[in-house]
């Protein structure tokens, strides 16, 4: 029966259109704001050096640009390499996705209340199983997005690197840094992050019976957490900082990129603890959602 419910939910997600459409928009924004803009930045910096070269060529026998002057250009070019293509796009997803998934999570539940279909679904399938199926789909959406971004990142890395070799004279001299973590770990971070913040939006919508309120809750809670609690010494146990620790631990951040390394972190006693803490937050959110759905009355 739960399999049937999963299929129904899948059809609702797909036929609702907003998930595939917004996924494509998110991907387009990420690719444009990420590799494309970084490439454009690197090319414009290169052109700037070319202009300097043409101006000063007459005054000097040899035009020398030292490493300090080209450091940020080298980092931007490194981001365009195939070795960091997946890293770059997944790091973008891990940040932008946490702003989109609360909206999706809230929408999954809020649309049932807005359309007043919650009572029919609940009467025919039970509200807790319906919500559980939505939670599974939220995880599938998070995983699917991570895989999609990884594949696009791998492809874009090759494309941008090829283009950089032709357009940027420095590209041949750049040796990109190795990825900071294995691919599986890089994939798992946005999966967990997107799923968690999606769950926060979903839980908000479940409690308030409103997609808008749920989405706002998902978006505002991390900021509230930061404003109210700041970065205490035990801050590595907070979800926002635990997630930041995971990002900093798994991704390479270089200048010229769309996203930067998270600030105001509190490192955990051991790197594994960052995973454990954030996984615990995810499990807590899943548990809360299921517990609320089991007790919730559908009165309208």
């Amino acid at each position, binding site marked *: *029966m739960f399999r*049937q*419910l999963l*299929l*129904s939910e899948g*059809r*609702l997600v797909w*036929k*609702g*259109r907003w998930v595939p459409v917004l996924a494509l928009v998110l991907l387009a924004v990420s690719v444009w704001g990420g590799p494309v803009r970084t490439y454009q930045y690197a090319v414009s910096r290169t052109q700037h050096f070319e202009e300097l070269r043409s101006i000063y060529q007459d005054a000097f026998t040899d035009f020398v640009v030292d490493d300090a002057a080209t450091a940020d250009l080298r980092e931007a070019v490194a981001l365009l390499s195939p070795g960091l293509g997946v890293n770059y796009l997944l790091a973008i997803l891990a940040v932008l996705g946490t702003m989109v998934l609360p909206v999706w999570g809230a929408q999954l539940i809020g*649309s049932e209340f807005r*359309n*007043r*279909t919650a*009572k*029919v*679904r*609940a*009467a*025919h*399938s*039970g*509200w807790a199983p319906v919500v559980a199926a939505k939670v599974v789909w939220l995880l599938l959406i998070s995983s699917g997005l991570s895989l999609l971004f990884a594949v696009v990142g791998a492809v874009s890395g090759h494309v941008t690197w090829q283009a950089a070799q032709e357009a940027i004279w420095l590209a041949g001299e750049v040796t990109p840094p190795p990825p900071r973590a294995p691919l599986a770990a890089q994939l798992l971070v946005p999966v967990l992050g997107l799923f968690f913040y999606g769950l926060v939006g979903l839980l908000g919508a479940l409690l308030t019976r409103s997609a808008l309120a749920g989405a706002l809750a998902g978006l505002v809670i991390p900021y509230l957490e930061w404003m109210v609690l700041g970065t205490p010494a035990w801050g590595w146990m907070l979800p926002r900082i635990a997630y930041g620790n995971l990002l900093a631990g798994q991704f390479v951040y270089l200048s010229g990129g769309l996203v930067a390394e998270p600030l105001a972190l509190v490192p955990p006693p051991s790197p594994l603890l960052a995973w454990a803490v954030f996984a615990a937050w995810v499990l807590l959110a899943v548990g809360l959602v299921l517990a609320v759905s089991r007790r919730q*009355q*559908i*009165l309208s």
Partner: protein
Amino acid sequence: MTRPSLVTENLSKRFGGRWALKGLSFAVEPGSVTLLAGRNGAGKTTWMRLATGLAHPTSGAVRLGGKPAGLVRPRLAAVFDDAPVYPLLTGEENLYLLSGGRSPRTAEARAVIAGLDLEPLLPGRADGFSFGQRKRLAVAAALLRRPTWLLLDEPSVGLDSGAWGLVSRALRKLAAEGATIVVTGQDLKHLEELADGIVVIRDGAATFAGSLEQLRQSHPPRVTVRTRHPDRVRTLFPQARVVASQPTPCVEIPCATMAEGEAVLAQIRSLDIPLHSLELRAATLEETFRRLGLYAEETNREEVAQ
């Protein structure tokens, strides 16, 4: 006697300080259609939510085949008064989702869809459907589940007589196959043609539970006379009462049986007074309800006339 298929046992539900249901009890046999009737706010919709497990009772229980709704969901179906749909999805997609994942493409499903004249709606987006079309879609979604228990809240509201004919035929067929059907509503003219039994709720409790015939017998037929000489009629029948005075006074004489009513008719004719109208009618469910005081506006009108 058949074992009841649906039992409501001392059911109470409180919202804040207000009791929506207060010790409601009744039982429904399989293969029957039961009308749950009462005034607005009597607790019919609350019962529906408790019976389908959407809300938790303050005390008591509704048992379907001896079990709570949560344990028999695959065999339970519900149609709600507002017939909600996913507006951006097609009729067919709505049928699939609202029926709990039952395919609308099987031969059996096709028969249900044809029976409710829904084929033209299947490819269209639901945001263009009228309320009546959504209602038929909701009934079809419920029937696709092949339910043992089907609960419908105000099923006739929003349907024209043709559409109601299609729905009531489908419901009758399902009951004939052994399903237990409970309908709530106030559109008694339509619902009394469908129902076998009736439960009347007042102030959150059942004031009558039995067959429609038993209810009618508790409110016997009456002779209605419209004449400018009501006093002559009342002299002959002291139990008669004037229920309206404009434009022509109307007098009602309750009778124990139809035969007694025939005799009353003969006596009035023998009075040799001018009559605007004279009729003997068995009480309809609607009239019975008025007499039970379940329609506030009618009760007031009668009180004013008296």
